[in-house]
Every structure is written in C-alpha cells, then in structure tokens.
C-alpha cells in the first residue's frame, strides 16, 4: 500500500486515478474476494428481503413440534413448532446490524486515537499505549461479558461494548502505520506550508492510510460477528425471540445428545459458519491486494 500511496500522494490527480483503477482491477480479479463477497452478499440479501422469501413466519408457533425435514418444512421445525428454514433465512439480520455498526464505532475511535498517538508521540502516546496494553490483557469475550452485566444487554450496548473493545486494537494498527507515514516528505511539506496538526492528520495522512484501515475494518468485522455469536450463545447478546442463528443454537443444543433433532441446530451452525468464513475471505482478498 505504502508504495502506491506515495505515488498517489503526488500532485497529479490523473496518476492517482490510474493507481486507483489498477487497485480495483486487481480486486476484481481476486477469487478469494469474489467468493467472500458472494457468500456475504447472499446473507445480506436474505437479511434484507428474507421475510418475503421465507415460506413461514419465523416467529409463528405451531403444533408441528420437532418435525424432521420434509417437503412442508425443508429444515424441519424446532421445539416450539417454528419453521427452521424460515428462521435460518432471516437469522442473520440482527447480527448484520450489530457487527458492522460496532466495527464502524471501533474503527472511527481507533483511527482517531491511532492518528493522534502516532502523530504526536511523546507522553500522550506513552500513556495511551499503556492503557491499550492493559485492555489487550483480557480476551474480548470476558471483557464484553463483564461490561454487559454492568450495562445490561441490548443491541445498543452490544454495539458500544464491542466497538469500544475494538478501539485499542485498531488504534495500535493505525498508530504503527502513521509512524511510518509521518516521516514522509509530504507531511514535512504540509508542515512548511503552516498547516495545523489536525489538518495534517485528517486531510493529509488519513487518505494515505485508507488501505490498511479498510483491511483492519474487514478483519474486525469478522471478529465482531464472532463476538456477537459467542455473546448471544452465552445469553448476553441478541435476546429471544429473535431468530438469530446463535440463539437458535443456544436454544436447541441440549436436544443434541439424544441423537435426534439435529436439524434444529445443524443448519444454523452451517449458516453462521458460512457467514464468518465469507467475511474472512473478503478480508484475506483485500489484504493480498491492498497490503504492499
């Protein structure tokens, strides 16, 4: 990225356009990226239009309890007689709201902190870095559970907790990139022109480090879905009666040991797996093209 951004930082807007088009062309050729986009796109479409595609109301209770997969119920029904196929189709909608918003929050806060610490260095940098280290000593899920107990579980608190938990990690990545960038000539040039620190950070440096930030955002999105899934499974995330996949698994996994009723869990498990794998494929594809 840095090689390209140096070129793009030049005065010629035409050159920058060419570089950008080249990056897009490479992105369009990446098989990993395309596979990821297709999978994630499928689930986004399901989340958006799922309620019209789904054959039954995902929340409707019926007398047909724990029916195995059949023509009427492709994926069977759960313990409350709800159609599993319909629930799987719309099962991503909640996660796909929370995870991107949490990621966005973490990226915005983390980028700001990373820019400030990386640009100013000195005592601000030192003290914030120590706090970041302390944060990183705790696994995300333990931190989130503790915070959610104190704040109570709702979609909003979930977004805030995950977003704030991501902030130090994003800040660390951005800071490392800024450290390299601030030594470059265009920063010195801006300083000589008498530009303020805020202008240099957000107008000069920020556009040149979008590559690493986009990669970081996709990686974080994967972790956000992972975190929402784990927290929901534990009962601290998305609350019933939402047809969320992890909630379906949490509700029904105890039926597994009997050996029957596998359909109440398996399809939701496959769905959530495919979504996180899809997001990670996107992250991987972007990384290959945008990094260096």
């Amino acid at each position: 990225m840095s090689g390209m951004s140096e070129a793009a930082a030049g005065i010629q807007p035409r050159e920058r356009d060419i570089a950008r088009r080249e990056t897009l062309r490479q992105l369009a050729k990446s098989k990993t990226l395309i596979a990821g986009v297709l999978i994630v796109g499928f689930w986004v479409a399901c989340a958006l239009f799922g309620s019209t595609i789904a054959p039954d109301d995902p929340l409707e209770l019926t007398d047909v309890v724990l029916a195995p997969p059949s023509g009427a119920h492709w994926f069977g029904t759960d313990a409350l007689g709800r159609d599993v196929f319909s629930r799987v189709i719309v099962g991503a909608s909640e996660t796909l709201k929370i995870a991107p918003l949490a990621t966005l929050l973490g990226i915005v806060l983390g980028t700001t902190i990373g820019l400030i610490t990386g640009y100013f260095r000195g005592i601000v940098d030192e003290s914030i870095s120590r706090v970041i280290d302390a944060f990183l000593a705790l696994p995300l899920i333990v931190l989130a559970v503790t915070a959610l107990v104190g704040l109570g579980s709702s979609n909003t608190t979930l977004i805030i907790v995950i977003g704030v938990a991501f902030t130090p990690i994003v800040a660390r990545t951005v800071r490392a990139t800024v450290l390299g960038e601030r030594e470059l000539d265009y920063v010195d040039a801006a300083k000589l022109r008498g530009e303020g620190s805020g202008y240099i950070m957000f107008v000069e440096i920020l556009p040149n480090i979008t590559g690493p930030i986009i990669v970081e955002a996709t990686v974080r999105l994967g972790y956000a879905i992972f975190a929402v899934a784990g927290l929901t499974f534990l009962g601290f995330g998305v609350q019933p009666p939402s047809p969320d996949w992890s909630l379906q698994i949490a509700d029904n996994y105890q039926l597994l040991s009997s050996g029957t009723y596998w359909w109440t869990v398996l399809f939701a498990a496959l769905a959530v797996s495919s979504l996180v794998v899809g997001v990670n494929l996107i992250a991987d594809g972007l990384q290959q093209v945008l990094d260096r």
Partner: protein
Amino acid sequence: MIVFALAQLLPGDVGRNVLGPFASQEQVDRLNEALGVNRPLVVQYWDWISHFLRGDLGTSLQYQVPVSDLLGPALANSLKLAAVAFVFVVPLSIIGGTIAGLKRGGIIDRVITVGGLSLTAVPEFVTAIVLILIFGVTLGWLPVTATAPEGASIPTQIEYLLLPSFALVAVLFGYIARITRSSVMESVDADYTRTAYLKGLTRRQVVGRHVLRNSLLPTIAVVATQVGYLIGGLLVIEKLFNYNGIGQRIYTAAVNKDFLMLESGVMIVGVIYLVATFVADILYSVFNPRIRFQADG
C-alpha cells in the same frame, strides 16, 4: 491493571441488583452497608486489590462461601482442559505450518491455509456442536460431556476432555499455523539457508537446524498471546459442555450478578495472560541469543 478499576466502576447499585427490584430501599441500603459497597470507590478498589494480592478474594455474594474455594478447583479444571488443547494444537499447527511454508503455493499449502482460516473464523461453539454431532452422536466414539464420572482414571478423564479441547484446537490451529507458515517462508528465503545448502547440508539438516529454529520464534510469541484468547474460548466451551472450570464460573457469576466472584475471575484471567506473556518473553530470549546478549550488555 487499570482495567479492573473500570470493572469496579461498572456494577452500579450492587445491593439492588442482588435483592432484585422488589426489595425495599431500606433493605438495599443495609446490604450495601454490610458489603461495604457504599464506600468511596477508591477505598473499595484499594481494599479489593490488597486483599487480592494476599490471596483473599472475598466472599461470593451468591454462594456465601469464599470465592477462592470456588475459583481454585475451577481454575485447576480449566488448566487441565487448556493443557490437553495445547498438547494437540502446538505440535499440529507447527507441523502443519511448516509443511505449508515449505510447499508454498501447492495443494497441501492451500488446504492447510484455507482450512485453517475457515476453522479459526468459525465460532467455537459451532465447531464444538459439529464435533459433538460427528464424534459423539453419529459415531459414538467420544463422550459428549466433559466431566468424567467421580474417581475416573486419568486416561478416562482425558478421554472426556478430548471433544471440548478439539473445539479449541480448531480455532487456534489456523492462527498458529499461519504464523509458522509465514516465518518458515521467510527463513527459507534467507541467506543463511542458501549458505547452508551450499555448504552441502541435506534438506533435512537445513530444515531442522536452520529453518525451524529461526521460524519458531514468532510462533512462540503467538502461542502466548493465544492463551488470552483460549480463556475467552473456555467461557463458551465450558458452558456448552457444562464443565466446571473458570469460564463456567465467570459465566455463572455474570448471570447471577455475583460481582465479587466475577471480578476475581476476570482478574485471574488477566494474571494468567500476563504470566503467559512473561514466560513467552523468557523463552524468546532463550531461543534467540541476540536478545539474550543485548540484555547482558
């Protein structure tokens, strides 16, 4: 350790949370008084941290027994589970990563990289459930619970721990293998490797003495940072398998708003992470003379 000051600030009205919304304000105040939670936060924090350092974790609000009596055995159980997971994941992922790194771009490399990436991305409870379905329910090879019957022999205990630890292995494998792979690739390209080949060493000698030794360094660092993740994973896995470990304790404490136990549990997790990082630093310098000599000089 600043984190724990944050954790202290979060709970809000402890007495109200313990007694529920129907208790009178007077009762709530009395409980708060008895627990000492109405004192200034700084005093509370100091009290708690100084007791913690002396090994006195206080009394569980929910069970009314010392927290250390509950967390001690739970920690031992968790360490057993984590040990089994590590025994599998470290050699597996180092071997996998090395093979992938040596056969870069080949089919085996693709399988290990993409497979590892997918396993890492999938939430551990999903992996665990698929494992239960395959090995526990369909094939019936392994027990689907984690706790062995009372007085079971050590091999039996380990057998019961296999399924939960495999779920943790699945998540960690891709990550560790990926780091090993990239550092193996780096050292394969390095000058000293070429020199070693030119000296006339066989491939086996070059890989064993030069490539592996140099590429294990970053792996050690990653394994240590994954200890932190591992404990996060324990929270979910122990709940899923109903295994009485530290994760399960933190979970129950969180559900029942047993703040003292929750804080102590979280604190222990933090301490374990710090210890793991410290051990990794030491190992790092043992394997890397450059750092060792720097420290001496």
